[in-house]
Every structure is written in structure tokens, then in C-alpha cells.
């Protein structure tokens, strides 16, 4: 019967999706409560089996309890919301004011890497994940730039560099998914837009060479798409409900892509591919999370 209680507590823990230290405290608190209740019921004459069944009934649905506790803990402060939105604001400004021409891009990426490393080593707070996404950008941008190498070398990039980058992204994404798959989606949020802008700039140039000139033409639009992401992240940090968080990420991703598409250079196949990429970045973390949890807790549902 104690097994039933453990299974119940494990079910709550699986659905909490908070940092490990907080999860452990919450489970210990609920366990103490259940033990007190069991002791009282057994003293009143109930068998262990009856007491456990009664106790679990009184505690209520594990998923509901986990969801309500998550909502009590998940809301970030306005300061955290601002800190999380800051990299998107910076990149919105960078684009709108064309600061990349005066070399602010490497500075911004350097700061993003520094802050991401600091956050990663200090308990992975919620504000970390947008910074983490930007700290991966140099890797992605290098891959995209390598595609512009003379013919023949692009294949080397596709065959060697891209798989390595995907491996790195998967490793980090899986580590983040272990905390919460929504954070992984939050981290990957700007990548589809960025890929979209690169593709749009390339198409604008009729598949010729590559220069910042094309980006300058799109600068206000790129700035706007990053501003949408900044507002999204701030709202994400402030709202409590998981479903609403997913909805806000989806809406924002679609809105950012609509901005990319409205720049007018993407054809239907490229637009469709970008939308698929966006939803893959949103949904793959959720499927991976489901798969990993099933693998680690085969007995629980």
C-alpha cells in the first residue's frame, strides 16, 4: 500500500516541472502530510489498505495538485520578465537601428554567451533560456554562412557541420527538456525567424553572393519580429498556466513568421517549410519530453 502512495507522489513529481530542489521539498511536505493522515486513520481502526485508499482520495488528483502547485510557483517577477526579454529587445534594436554595421552584433552575442553560462551554472532560472537561445546563434549563423562558400564546399558544410550542430542543439535541448520542455521551446523561439530572414535575404539576392545589404533592406521588419518575441517572452514569464504559455509561444511564432513572409520574397514552398520548422521547434520538445518520461517511469501513467 505504501507503493500506492509512492506512485501517487511520483506522479505529482513527474507533473510538477519545477527545479529539482523545489520538487523535493514539495514531495517531502506532501509525504509528511500523507503519513500523518495514514497514522491517524490506522489509529482510528482502518487497515493499511483502507487508510491508503482513503488518504489518496482525500488528497485528490495527482495531476490537479501538481498543476496547482506549478501555477503557484511558475509566475516570474517583472524583473525576471524584463531580464528574459532583454536579448530579444537588444536584437530588435540592433536590427531596427542597423547596429550590426558598427559591430554590435559580436558584442551582443558575447554578452549572451556570458549570461547564458552564468545562468546555466546558477540553477538554470527561467530568464536563462532566451539568453541560451542567442548564445547558440553564432553556431547556427556560422553554419548558414558556410552555405555561401564556393560550390562543392557547401556540401561539406551540409555533411559535416550541420550534423554536428544538430547534435549540439539536441544535447542542450534535451538537458533543457529535462527541466521543462516549454523552456526548450522558449529557447529555440528565435531560430525559425532567423532562418526565415536568411532565406528571405538570399532569395532577394537571386541566389547570388551574400552581404549585409539585403539585411539592411529588411531591418525594420526584422526588428519588429524580434520585438514580438520580446513581448512574448515577458508575457510567458508572467503567466502561470502551462496551456496559456504554449498558446502564447505558438501565436508569437506564427506572428513572427507572418512578418517574415510579409517582407514579400518567400515563395510558397519556403513559407511552408518555415511554418513546419516553427511547429517542429515547438512540438518536438514536447514529444521528446513525453518519450523521456515514459522511458524513465514505465509503471506510472
Amino acid at each position, binding site marked *: 500500500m505504501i507503493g500506492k502512495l509512492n506512485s501517487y507522489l511520483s506522479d505529482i513529481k513527474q507533473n510538477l516541472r519545477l527545479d529539482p530542489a523545489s520538487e523535493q521539498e514539495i514531495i517531502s511536505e506532501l509525504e509528511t502530510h500523507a503519513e500523518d*493522515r495514514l497514522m491517524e486513520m490506522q489509529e482510528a481502526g482502518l487497515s493499511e489498505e483502507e487508510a491508503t485508499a482513503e488518504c489518496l482520495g482525500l488528497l485528490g488528483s495527482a495531476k490537479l*495538485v501538481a498543476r496547482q502547485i506549478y*501555477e*503557484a510557483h511558475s509566475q516570474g517577477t517583472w524583473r525576471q520578465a524584463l531580464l528574459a526579454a532583454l536579448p530579444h529587445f537588444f536584437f530588435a534594436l540592433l536590427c531596427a537601428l542597423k547596429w550590426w554595421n558598427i559591430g554590435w552584433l559580436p558584442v551582443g552575442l558575447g554578452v549572451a554567451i556570458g549570461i547564458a553560462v552564468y545562468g546555466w551554472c546558477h540553477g538554470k532560472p527561467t530568464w536563462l533560456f532566451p539568453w541560451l537561445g542567442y548564445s547558440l546563434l553564432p553556431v547556427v549563423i556560422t553554419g548558414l554562412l558556410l552555405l555561401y562558400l564556393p560550390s562543392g564546399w557547401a556540401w561539406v558544410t551540409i555533411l559535416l557541420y550541420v550534423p554536428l550542430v544538430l547534435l549540439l542543439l539536441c544535447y542542450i535541448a534535451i538537458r533543457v527538456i529535462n527541466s521543462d520542455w516549454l523552456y526548450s521551446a522558449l529557447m529555440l523561439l528565435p531560430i525559425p525567424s532567423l532562418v526565415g530572414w536568411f532565406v528571405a535575404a538570399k532569395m532577394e539576392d537571386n541566389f547570388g553572393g551574400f552581404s549585409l545589404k539585403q539585411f539592411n533592406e529588411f531591418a525594420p521588419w526584422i526588428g519588429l519580429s524580434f520585438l514580438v518575441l520580446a513581448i512574448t517572452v515577458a508575457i510567458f514569464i508572467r503567466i502561470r498556466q502551462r496551456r496559456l504559455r504554449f498558446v502564447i509561444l505558438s501565436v508569437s511564432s506564427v506572428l513572427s513568421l507572418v512578418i517574415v513572409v510579409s517582407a514579400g520574397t518567400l515563395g510558397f514552398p519556403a513559407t511552408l517549410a518555415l511554418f513546419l520548422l516553427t511547429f517542429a521547434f515547438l512540438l518536438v520538445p514536447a514529444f521528446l519530453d513525453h518519450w523521456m518520461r515514459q522511458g524513465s517511469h514505465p509503471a506510472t501513467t
Partner: protein
Amino acid sequence: MAARQDLLKGNIDTLLLSLVNQQPMYGYQIMRELDGRSQGYFKFKEGTLYPALHRLEKAGLLQGDWQTIASGRQRRYYSITEKGRRILVQQTEQWQDFFAAMNLIFRPRRPETQVSK
């Protein structure tokens, strides 16, 4: 029963602050006090007590501290903070005003002739 649940849901913060204001308590103790003092009027799923306690703690109205009791087990005791006390005073005043107004409505109206005398 549903109306009672709604009333409880709307006032759970005041009830918890009021109980913890009298002395620091742990979750199970709060549940027992709530049940005993209300003579079984306030019944709800025990697991939902903790989200409410944690929400009040996050809002800075309660503070939770782990304490080891004689048997060696650990319990998380909640105590009220200064901010919590201020909010409780406000909420208690609101309740008393509401209760007084409700009583005035419930009380049978005296005939006007008697009033004029």
C-alpha cells in the same frame, strides 16, 4: 455544496492567514484546525491546501520553514509575515463590514408605525 465550495475557494486565503496568524502551523495541522473549528463545514481536497499555502508564500504573506520535531521527522511550519498581517487586517475588516451589511438585510424590518413612534 457547490455554493459552499465557491465560498471556500473565494476565502481560502483569509482563512489560512487567520489560522496561521494565531500560531505557526504545518499543513496537516492547518487542515485539522480548519475542519475542527468549522465543525466540518470547510471540506476540500487536502492536496489543494498546499498550492494555496505556496501561493501565499510566493506572495510574501506567509513564510515556510522546515523544523525537525521530536520523532526526528521534518515538518514545514508556516508563519505569517508583516505583509500577511496587514492584508489579513484589511480582509477581516472587509468581511466584518460585509457580514454586518448582510445581517442588516436579513433582520426583519420593523413596521414603519413603530419607527415613527
